[in-house]
């Protein structure tokens, strides 16, 4: 399989870009691929935290771009999976410390050793976003079923398409089936109707994600987590498999059951 650079972006902050990047990278590595996760959020690095690798950083992306170290020296091997690597962002610099051309060059170099290169974009639509977008062969736009997040996603999709990127797919995060059923949350279909791009993943809201983040252990490693399962499905779609989207109504989450119980009254 040809190496691919996949940029994960959203426009709005706080919708789960970094969590999805960390989990997708882990899921792809669990499936046996050589994976590099690149944190392009210079100044606000978090991908290391999600992967539990924050204590192992020596060099970062900006050090590589400015020639202070070789690419290999900056790559951190994951604790659990020997085929997963992190290229961390610099924490004490700002987003202008790296240019789109630097990112393209670094990702090209990574393609020699990795089949999937996931780039975690910063929020916003300025320099940092454009830098993260530059090397992308495919783009995943993350949104949640909320008005502001969908609006920003629409803007970002416009910019991504204007940049000439042809493969743009949507991941809808933090869906609460019981709220959709009650008529108080945009459904997956609603969001798709509005944004009109192909779907790559639907991830239900899951308190396990907070627990996983606390521990620095991606939730896909928790075999009983239903959000982890949704991200594994997403990874399989990225690998080219046809994976149907399960009806969210069937997921027997605690909240879901609670919702049903109350509604019977």
């Amino acid at each position, binding site marked *: 399989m040809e190496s691919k650079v996949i940029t994960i972006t959203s426009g709005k902050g706080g919708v789960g870009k970094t969590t999805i990047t960390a989990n997708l990278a882990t899921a792809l590595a669990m499936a046996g691929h050589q994976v590099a996760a690149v944190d392009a959020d210079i100044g606000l690095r978090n991908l290391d935290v999600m992967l539990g690798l924050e204590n192992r950083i020596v060099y970062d992306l900006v050090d590589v771009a400015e020639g202070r170290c070789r690419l290999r020296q900056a790559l951190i091997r994951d604790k659990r999976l020997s085929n997963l690597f992190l290229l961390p962002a610099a924490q004490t610099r700002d987003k202008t410390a790296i240019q789109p051309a630097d990112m393209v060059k670094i990702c090209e170099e990574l393609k020699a050793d990795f089949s999937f290169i996931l780039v975690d974009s910063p929020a916003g639509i300025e320099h940092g976003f454009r830098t993260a977008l530059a090397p992308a062969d495919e783009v995943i736009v993350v949104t949640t079923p909320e008005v502001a997040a969908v609006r920003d996603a629409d803007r970002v999709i*416009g910019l991504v398409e204007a940049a000439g990127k042809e493969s743009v797919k949507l991941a809808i995060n933090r869906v609460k089936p019981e709220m959709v059923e009650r008529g108080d949350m945009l459904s997956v279909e609603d969001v798709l109707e509005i944004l009109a791009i192909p779907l790559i993943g639907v991830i239900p809201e899951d308190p396990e994600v907070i627990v996983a983040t606390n521990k620095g252990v991606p939730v896909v490693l928790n075999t009983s987590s239903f959000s982890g399962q949704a991200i594994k499905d997403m990874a399989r779609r990225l690998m080219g498999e046809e994976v149907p989207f399960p009806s969210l109504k069937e997921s027997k989450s605690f909240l879901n059951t609670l919702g049903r119980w109350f509604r019977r009254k």
Partner: protein
Amino acid sequence: MRLFKIGGSEGSRNIAKERLKLMLIQDRIEVSPGFMEELREAVLSSVGKYLDVDREKAQLSLELGEKLGQLVATIPVKRVKRKAEHD
């Protein structure tokens, strides 16, 4: 129990959807500068089959109505053609 009342068609989901659709009409126009020019051309050339219009003075704008976007066109008509002229 109010908190768990089934919203049905009156739920906030539909309000969210309507608000979003309206917002995106406005956002998308702002994102693509060539879009209005293209739309203007398309409208004038199709109206032009039936009416002899003053293309220079024609004005076209997309605005936000109460519940939907609306296309507002002010096109001075010089002459009404007897029958449609096709190219």
